């Protein structure tokens, strides 16, 4: 039978490296909050004539918006993000731009005041906290009949934290490189991913419980591996069908839903990995108390010396 759990230290190493890079990026670059959380105005304009992004930026700086952020969309429009604009500010800005670059059409305007931004951030934080508690309660309930509910619950939660850390880390890198922001849809995507990932973990753990009951082997490692292999095609197939539709969203709907689709895509891949490779193998490590072995397994010079 295909040996999944035997590669557990390799899985841990992969996760550790990805998470470490993400944490470094989070510390160095942080996350860029969108205007829903930090207030400000954002507009999408399209010019009739061809306009160079650098010239547009220069013009906006001259108009008194030194911190303006400009992005070109796929259709040749421009996202212009500024501090909060009043009606007059906006009228002045648009007339100055059309005087300089010819006529323009405003496709979208979005403005959030600091008070609303603060409320949104506050409530989003509460929602994340409530979701965490709700899912913890659910995990406790779902694993109540497991032989060691605490082990199963904790490993399930570690897998969740793992998923969230990877998604945050990757978004911090995307933010630093592409200027991607954390908006409400990002939070929505992360919560959807958490729900998705935990349900994969539950299916795998459920099978472990069933097989333990059948007593297919006295060796816990064999039971876990057998359960993993049995549920493998289900987990991969479900993830694949979901990845198909998310890819379709990403490719055909484009910019407006991009962050959201990317969160889902990364989240589904990471969530599938963690529920197959991390959560069940952690159970074995815990069962056997082999935490120290991972360090020894690492191909580091001192570890090698010790292992030899």
């Amino acid at each position, binding site marked *: 039978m295909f040996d999944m759990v035997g590669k557990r230290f390799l899985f841990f190493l992969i996760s550790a490296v990805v998470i470490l890079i993400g944490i470094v990026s989070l510390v160095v670059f942080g996350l860029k909050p969108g205007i*829903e959380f930090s207030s400000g105005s954002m507009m*999408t304009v399209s010019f009739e004539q061809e306009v160079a992004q650098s010239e547009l930026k220069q013009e906006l700086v001259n108009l008194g918006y030194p911190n303006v952020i400009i992005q070109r969309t796929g259709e040749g429009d421009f996202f212009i993000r500024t501090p909060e604009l*009043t*009606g007059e500010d*906006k*009228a002045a800005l*648009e007339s100055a731009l059309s005087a300089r670059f010819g006529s323009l*059409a*405003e*496709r*979208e*305007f*979005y*403005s*959030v*005041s600091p*008070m*609303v931004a603060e409320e*949104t951030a506050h*409530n*989003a934080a509460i*929602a994340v906290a*409530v979701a965490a508690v*709700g*899912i913890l309660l*659910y995990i406790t309930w*779902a694993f109540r009949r497991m032989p060691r509910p605490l082990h199963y619950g904790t490993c399930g939660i570690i897998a969740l934290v793992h998923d969230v850390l990877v998604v945050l880390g990757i978004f911090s890198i995307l933010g630093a490189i592409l200027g991607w922001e954390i908006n*409400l*849809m990002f939070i*929505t995507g992360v*919560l*959807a991913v*958490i*729900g*998705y990932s*935990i*349900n994969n973990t*539950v*299916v795998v753990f*459920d099978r472990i419980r069933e097989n333990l009951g059948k007593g297919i082997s006295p060796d816990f490692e064999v039971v876990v591996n057998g359960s993993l292999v049995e549920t493998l095609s*289900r987990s991969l*197939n*479900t993830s*694949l*069908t*979901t990845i*198909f*539709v*998310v890819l*379709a*969203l990403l*490719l*055909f*709907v*484009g910019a*407006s*839903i991009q962050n*959201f*689709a990317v969160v*889902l895509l990364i989240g589904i891949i990471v969530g599938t990995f963690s529920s197959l490779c991390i959560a069940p193998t952690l159970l074995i490590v815990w069962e056997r108390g082999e935490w120290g072995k991972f360090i020894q397994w690492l191909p580091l010079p001192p570890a090698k010396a010790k292992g030899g």
Partner: protein
Amino acid sequence: MAKRNTLTLIIILALFVFAICALIYPLFGREEMRLGLDLQGGIHMVYEADLSQVEPGEEASVIEGVMAVIGNRINPLGVTEPIIQRQGKDRILIELPGIDITDKEKERLSRVAILEFGELAADDEEAKWENELGRWKPATALIDGEERVLTSRYFKENTYVDRDDLGRIELSFEWDEEGSKLSEIITGRLIGKPLGMFEGDEPLLGEDGIPIAPTVQSTIVDRGVITGLSYNEATSLSKQLNAGRLPVSLKILYDQTVSPLLGVDFIDMSLKAGLIGIILVMLFMIIYYRLPGVLASLALIFYGALVLAIFKLVPVTLTLAGIGGFVLSIGMAVDANVLIFERMKEEFRTGRMLGAAIEAGFNRAWAAIRDSNVTTFIVCIILYWLGSSIVASAPVMGFALTLFIGVAVSMFTAIVVTRTLLRLFLGTPLAKKTSLFSAYSGRE
């Protein structure tokens, strides 16, 4: 058994036909899908009213007045389903779907509400307003040698609606000291003539869409009544007059304005995404599971039609994020089928007959299907709460609602529809060909 399956199939087909009809034809008064701002354009704004000048206890009536004024300003824009709502203590939300609004019109929506009274202008005089009742100029009078316009600022107290001895509707008002002097001169001059009411460039309209312009019956000094209005008209007018008495300034807290042109692209693009997503999932299911995959694909088509029909009939306001939730639910919808088919495969390998393997697969997979969807429901409920508690609510609520409906319906279609199709199929000669069941033929 076979009879029951046929009956279930008939019900499923009837539901399918119903869903398709609901999508094509207007049923229950739903002509079209309700689209969110990001898909059909329009504005969503939240104002904060400055209530610092308002006496405690009067906030509610002042806000109501301001809302009536905004409603009056929205009327001429021709929005089919405008929403004007009070939120919390001092906030007003407006949603105007499908409109292309200029910055000037937007500005006008939130201008301080002062009502001006007008009289008919003579032919050689300059008119400030023109409507079907004639050409109007502001009703003015000289006070201490200075020309003043009669406006809603001169009301002493809030106006109110009452009935006279004969039960007719009356709108009562009272002028302050200066207002009384103005009113005495103006109404004295206008007996038998109409007195118009204007807000900015627009006249105040009655229920019939005709401007309100009561005829002056006698000289009004400090207090008077307006008669001849319906109850609704009088209440609405009273609110607007009151809003003009204590002008409240509005600050924009949140503004989302989308050009209707932008949305058209999104509808096409997301339709394409949904369609391609469904086709990919169906191809995968058919290649991997063969015959059960074909049946699952049929169930998926049924699923798509049913969910969209529910969206239209409820109605669910579809936003881009909501469509994202729907498309995501397509991918997750087959999860239940995948769980069942995998279980069927295992049962078949342990030596059961095909029919028994199918039943066991469905029965044993149910616990996993139920448990695995619970987390998605928990997340949807929390997201819906989050959406309802914040100003920028539409995308979050849209996603939560469509994903919830999608997953709930998928549990039904994956279990009931696929099982019925498989059972019916077992009765046909094709069921002898186990190669149609892919991996089932590889019995160990």
